[in-house]
């Protein structure tokens, strides 16, 4: 039978095994950020990429000592709900976070339509929100005082493709205005803003669109559009439908063997077109908010290349790190910076600190204009060459020249 001493020893051992490990010795309070993110639905892929970015940054910051406000330390804890890629649900869930769960600081959802839906809620409750995944210009002209968006706005996405195509046409001695542009957009504020940027640039070159379509609601079938593209022998093909639209476009371009000299798609990386549809992806031009070759850095994450290495180690499924993940991490870093400058957890003081941000990050510079946007952020263009994403624009950041015309070996 066991002796009393034996019992005591056993219990002591049991208790010791439950004691926290030595590594996390510091006990910091929780600082809760709320986020409605898409775990399911048409934005699920980037919802997950965004969450990975948030989690990676929060963990890194917590391990490095957390956030120091008023002499105390805090660890970020992010509370998530699944918005199912539905704007109305995102709004309900953010209201729930603020009203029922008592969260005072919000991280934005993925995509402009969902962000558009939650902003009236955060504005109503005067709760600051850092949104890192919504680029539509209309989000910044509504007069919202509690919104801070760090990414480059959508009109910058596909306009360089038009400029490049015009340039190539001139070099070949052809008139740019004769180029036949075919485009299809998702019916959402981001894609339509992308479209507006394209339309304005096309007007500059006197180009006309031979096809200007909208995608079906679930972004699932583009055969009618692609059939028209083939029938009319388009010179430039543009598609903007978030990652689902890009995946469908790449898949069906391969199925229908669409050959167009210049193809521009948004959200290529998160749609994984280079991996899943290597033949159709070849030669496709993809705008990106961030690339690991950028010459930007900060004390927390290091350089863009450092971040790239660490995030790939944390998430080995990433062949190419989607920029959505990078910008999400930058957003959490921004929160830390804001809290530490405000030295307070009061919503108004933090909001004011956010508005005065002037921060260099591995993702790029963050300095907000009065409307909450980050005007100094620019886009890069990459082209898929031999299955790899190569920066081709702007010229001073380009690793290689554009391959023109596109040569897909179907």
């Amino acid at each position, binding site marked *: 039978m066991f002796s009393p001493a034996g019992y005591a020893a056993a219990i002591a051992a049991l208790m010791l095994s439950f004691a926290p490990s030595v590594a996390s010795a510091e006990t910091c309070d929780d600082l809760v950020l709320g986020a409605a993110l898409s775990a*399911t639905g048409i934005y699920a892929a980037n919802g997950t990429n965004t969450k990975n970015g948030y989690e990676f940054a929060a963990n890194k910051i917590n391990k490095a000592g957390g956030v120091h406000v008023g002499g105390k330390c805090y660890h970020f804890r992010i509370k998530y709900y699944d918005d199912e890629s539905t704007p109305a649900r995102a709004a309900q869930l953010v209201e729930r976070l603020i009203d029922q769960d008592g969260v005072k600081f919000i991280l934005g959802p993925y995509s402009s339509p969902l962000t558009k839906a939650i902003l009236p809620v955060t504005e109503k409750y005067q709760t600051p929100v850092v949104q890192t995944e919504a680029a539509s210009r209309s989000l910044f002209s509504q007069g919202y005082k509690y919104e801070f968006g760090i990414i480059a706005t959508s009109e910058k996405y596909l306009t360089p493709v038009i400029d490049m195509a015009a340039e190539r046409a001139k070099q070949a001695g052809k008139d740019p205005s004769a180029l036949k542009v075919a485009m299809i957009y998702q*019916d959402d504020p981001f894609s339509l803003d992308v479209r507006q940027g394209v339309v304005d640039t096309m007007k500059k070159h006197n180009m006309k669109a031979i*096809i200007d379509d909208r995608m079906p609601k*679930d972004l699932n079938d583009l055969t009618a559009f692609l*059939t028209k593209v083939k029938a009319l022998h388009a010179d430039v093909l543009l598609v903007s439908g978030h990652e689902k639209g890009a995946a469908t476009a790449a898949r069906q371009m391969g199925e229908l*063997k669409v050959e167009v000299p210049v193809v521009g798609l948004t959200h290529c990386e998160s749609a994984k077109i280079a991996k899943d549809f290597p033949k159709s992806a070849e030669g496709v031009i993809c705008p990106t908010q961030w690339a690991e070759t950028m010459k930007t850095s900060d004390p927390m994450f290091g350089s863009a290349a450092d971040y790239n290495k660490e995030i790939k180690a944390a998430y080995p499924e990433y062949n190419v790190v989607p920029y959505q993940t990078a910008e999400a991490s930058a957003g959490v870093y921004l929160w830390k910076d804001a809290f530490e400058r405000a030295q307070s957890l009061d919503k108004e003081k933090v909001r004011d600190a956010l508005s005065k941000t002037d921060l260099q990050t591995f993702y790029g510079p963050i300095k907000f204009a009065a409307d909450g946007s980050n005007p100094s952020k620019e886009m890069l263009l990459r082209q898929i060459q031999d299955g790899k994403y190569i920066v081709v624009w702007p010229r001073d950041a380009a690793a290689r020249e554009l391959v023109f015309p596109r040569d897909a070996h179907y």
Partner: protein
Amino acid sequence: MQHIIGNISILWAAPILNVGLLLDGLMIGAIFALAAYGLALVWGVMNVKNLAQGDFIMMGGYVAWYLDQSGLHPLWGVPIAFLLLWGVGWVLYKAIVRKVITRDLFTSLLATFGIAIVIQQGLNLAFGPNTQSAQANLPSWSLAGGLITVTGTRLFGLVLAVLLSAAVVLFMKNTRMGQAIRATAQDPRAARVLGINTERVYTFTFCLNAAICGAAGALVAMVWNIQPFMGTTYSIRLFVIVTAAGFGNLPAVIAAGFGMGVFEQFGGFVFGAEFQQAIIVLLLLAVLTVRQIQQLSLRQALQ
């Protein structure tokens, strides 16, 4: 407006595209016709307007998808969905539908709508809101320089739908149960007097409809795609077909089914894919209006 004209001119400039749309429409329309027949059956025999019809189809589709995910060829989904949905129909009939047949018509409509919502949300919880499809991996053929693609899956779907419809029709004509169903549809009281167990007939009819929907759904998953909330669109499509054709008129129902498929393909191409749902619902309103006018000329109302 411009892009509608643009699309029409494309059809004019490349007439071969019309053939492609027609073929696609017929192949999909066959599946519509099959499911519409089931709806007409339940409508005619039990006077139940089943608003959950489209959701039965979605359930059948998810059966095929699930089989595909588990490694089994989704074509097995057709008979398996048929049997599974037969069972589902049986449970729903005994638990709910049986109790509302005798009440007023709105109650049965509302009850089936309630069933539809439960199924939709249940599928959403179980499988998520993403659009899915089952890969049958049959060959496709490219015609006319790549402007027409005939997929083996769609062709196969057409063949199966036709076979299944033929089987059901033969069943109706030549078996005792089939005759009992027809008799009950004509006059339930007389049928009861003549010794037919109308309760069994009703059960069988509802189960048969659910099973047909299941099989059709399995085909839809392979030929097109499925999503938990797509059921409503299908229900409305089928209502349009049955209302336009009249539920007693089988050849008309089948013809209307094909017509619906073709109309949708052309409509989607000309007006744009984002209008697909709107077109279907507007068609419903148009059909109801036309029927109303017809009835008015007979000094009746559409009941």
